[in-house]
């Protein structure tokens, strides 16, 4: 499969664009690293809960709640990087066929697909924003008073951040396919 994604040689891209992309990629990577550390934290937490319960009769309060909130955070912190690295599932049989015969059409298709994805993630972002505001204003929490409670807003915020990061990567991807579409060779993708 032709790699439309990061790290492939794309000499046809102007330097200014490559510069912007490097900055965006660093930000995406930072989110990715935070998400990765969160997985580690979940592992430590569940272990602490089990060991505390079995050995010391003192389970850690709120582990199911923290874990169920963390997984949402983990996913949205990493989804932009997953896209950048080409990990989102797609069937490439038709695309490869087109690539061989009409590389520009392939770029055009890629551009249209990415625009559709941008519209969708924008919708998701716009509709998720009120959910964050609600959680923030009302101070909603997970858990139960007297045992353990944790605010919900950080997760809702991370959903927004994740969508924004994914949007940035999608826009960069759309521009890349546009350059490929208009570049003289057209086949270099």
């Amino acid at each position, binding site marked *: 499969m032709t790699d439309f994604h990061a790290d492939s040689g794309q000499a046809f891209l102007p330097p200014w664009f490559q510069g912007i992309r490097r900055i965006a990629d660093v930000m995406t990577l930072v989110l990715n690293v935070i998400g990765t550390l969160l997985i580690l934290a979940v592992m430590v937490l569940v272990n602490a809960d089990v060991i505390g*319960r079995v050995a010391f*009769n*003192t*389970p850690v*309060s*709120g582990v*199911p709640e923290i874990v169920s909130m963390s997984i949402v955070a983990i996913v949205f912190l990493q989804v932009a990087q997953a896209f950048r690295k080409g990990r989102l599932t797609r069937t490439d049989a038709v695309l490869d066929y087109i690539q061989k015969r009409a590389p520009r059409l392939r770029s055009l298709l890629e551009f249209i697909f990415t625009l559709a994805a941008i519209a969708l993630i924008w919708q998701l972002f716009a509709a998720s924003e009120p*959910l964050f505001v609600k959680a923030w204003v*009302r*101070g*909603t*929490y*997970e*858990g*139960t*008073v*007297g*045992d353990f*409670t944790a605010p*919900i807003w950080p997760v809702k915020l991370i959903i927004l951040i994740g969508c924004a990061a994914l949007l940035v990567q999608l826009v960069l991807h759309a521009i890349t396919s546009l350059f490929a579409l208009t570049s003289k060779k057209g086949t270099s993708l």
Partner: protein
Amino acid sequence: EEISATVVAGHPPVFRWVKHVSQTFIPAVNAALEGSDYSISWSEQYGGSLAKVGDELEATEEGLAEIGLVSSLFDPAKLAVQNVTYFTPFVSSDSTVVAEWMDKLQANDADMKASWEENGLEYLGGATGIDDYLLMTNFPVESISDLDGKKIGAPGPAVNWLKGTGAVGVSGNLTTYYNEIKTGVYDGVIVFASAAVPGKLYEVAPHVTRIGFGAQYAGGIAANKDWYDALPPMVQKALKGAAITNRIAYHKDLDATVGKFLNIMEENGATVTQVDEAFRKEWADGMDNVAKIWAEKLDADGVGGSRVLKSYMDTMRDAGATPVRNWDQE
């Protein structure tokens, strides 16, 4: 004129409270509208097809569904005051009474009403009462000291009921109780009879102790407020009337089943014991006053927690309940 209404419930219709929405509430609305100019075309979305358990409120508030079977138990932050029963155990074991009075409080109590409105909902009624919670264990419980160091699984707020008993409360859920007791992760659970029998929990936890934790209010039927306000008055009346019919039918069904379920457990080799007043009092007195902690937290958030607590306790005492511990008077 045809009005379309999507009804959402996170639990599947095998749960009694969902079954009655489908088999009592909806037919009652249809019956009330028969012969009028209005009719409702229903789309019934149960079992997580549109919203998971605990997400019904948001789906109704946002307008994806017009009517929701909202579980306050699973939305303790948004419907904080509605959870008053879970923070006041040992008040009444009669779920019919608890449900009836909780429905009245939803209509009359300012804080209860406000909390539905803040979430963009109109409370229709149809309180879901939960039958008296039981302690089911794989060891006999003759005194509270028997619980020392034992791991007891309990639903979220009920973990608080174990504090002060020496037992280790572990927050768990119905779906895995059987295996967790069987393998020994838990030594017992706090659960209600109408869930214990279908899950065959008596096989692994044959010692059923009726502590008298009490019946609980788990939620009710609510409508999206914008949608409700735009309805013709007679349709509004039909919805609220049907919610009352639903509450009565559901609790009649529940009461008939609970007695039967305790018998089934005994027939299957479980021992059902009822603790005496002294046991119950010792348990209740040994607990932290979790109701007070809860009420003060709500007070601090600007919700009348202490007021609701008193209002609920007064209501129940007036209705003839004799709480083992008067949580509001300490």
